[in-house]
């Protein structure tokens, strides 16, 4: 197999790969959106409820002991083949880093800062929006970044349960003994993940220097 033949493939099948890439972006974006909403909300609620915190952390930890392929299989039985199952699976996997980092970020804000803000008459909502979330944001964004990369990579195997995305190319390459196709698909997944990582790396740095003053 020559690497040039992979690029030939991109040129010959541009339309096919573009369609898969768009599907991949769609699948991961929807999952990322769901994860962010659910993860942030859960993390915030946990930070003011110790009991809930330990239950949620145990549950999400347990989720990771299930192999992804088994979870996909399980979801096919429940929600059928296609994008819905894939998005549910991706969301379940990706939610832990966001929940954990939101929770840790908020609970680790210095006690005297919270005490000052409370004693000055902040309502719980004002405390959350003005103090806790901004100060937790570098940690939350670090979790968000991990989650996005993970979701993009895991999105590659969503095609096993009939969802679209670049996994389709990988899977087709494997089943038809066409290694160029597998490499072409994988390479695009990797590129997508790297670009997302670099962009989010800048965002993370920006927040850290704003909040913590690190250059």
């Amino acid at each position, binding site marked *: 197999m020559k690497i040039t033949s992979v690029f030939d493939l991109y040129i010959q099948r541009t339309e096919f790969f573009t369609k898969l890439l768009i599907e991949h972006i769609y699948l991961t974006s929807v999952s990322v959106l769901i994860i962010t909403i659910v993860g942030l909300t859960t993390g915030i609620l946990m930070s003011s409820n110790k009991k809930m915190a330990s239950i949620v952390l145990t549950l999400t930890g347990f989720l990771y002991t299930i192999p992804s392929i088994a979870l996909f299989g399980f979801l096919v039985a429940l929600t059928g083949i296609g994008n819905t199952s894939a998005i549910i699976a991706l969301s379940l996997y990706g939610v832990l880093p966001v929940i954990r980092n939101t929770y840790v970020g908020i609970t680790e804000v210095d006690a*005297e800062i919270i005490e000052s*803000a409370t*004693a*000055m*008459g*902040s309502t719980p909502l004002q405390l959350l929006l*003005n103090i806790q979330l*901004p*100060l937790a944001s570098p940690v939350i964004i670090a979790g968000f970044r991990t989650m996005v990369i993970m979701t993009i990579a895991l999105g590659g195997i969503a095609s096993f349960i009939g969802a679209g995305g670049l996994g389709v190319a990988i899977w087709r390459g494997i089943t038809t003994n066409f290694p160029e196709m597998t490499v072409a698909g994988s390479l695009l997944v990797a590129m997508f993940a790297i670009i997302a990582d670099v962009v989010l790396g800048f965002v993370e740095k920006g927040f850290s220097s*704003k909040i913590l003053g690190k250059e």
Partner: protein
Amino acid sequence: MTIIEFDKVSKSYEEGKDVIKDISFKIDEGEFVTLVGPSGCGKTTLLKMINKMIAPTAGKILIRGNEISSWDTTDLRRSIGYVIQQVGLFPHMTIAENIGYVLKITGAQKAERRSKALELISLVGLDKSYIDKYPRQLSGGQKQRIGVARALAGDPDIILMDEPFGAVDEIARKKLQDEFKQIHQKLGKTIVFVTHDIYEALKLGTRIVLMNNGVIEQSGTDTDLVFKPASPFVKDFFGIKGYKALLDEDTLQKDYEKAIEIAERTQ
């Protein structure tokens, strides 16, 4: 006029172990009350009951004539300034935003918050150019000044301070004390000030309250506590340190200069 009143107030964290034991006392408007005593005597607990950061187990606390339970917690806290030893400035906000925080949560516009911050930063003796800096760019003493400015922003009539100058170096502390005493005289706020520093307590307080084991041992002016101690504990606590704190520094300085002169002459 009485502004803060404790009426048979007790506090216990564990059954049968009272940190505050049946304390009754009143603070008048404009007083500068220093709460002093050994660690664990309950002075900080007493202070934090005033703005409902700690709830009493028994007894009544009245602020401006109204019992504390009838006050809306948020409203009460916004009307009382609060300064702690660690300052607790918000690291992600500029100095202007820190000072203007109380105004922000009560809905004031940005321009108003900024002009208030400019006014207060001069009052606490810092240059106006600090207004757009972040807390991490300031020294310990400067941070503490901002802490005081922040507590004054909502124009509260009561200010609570928990060892506010405890973490700054000796020279900066002395300066802060002098300036803060002037600020009190200028603004006439009621101040409740916790410290374990005898010198600080006697220097700043228009009334000094000595606590021990959850009760008030004695309350009075500096000369009352040093020269008319109500119990052996009071006498031991202030002792010669308290006496020294009352000596006039200018006279001492003159004596010292004279002693040097004599020593030079005899050489």
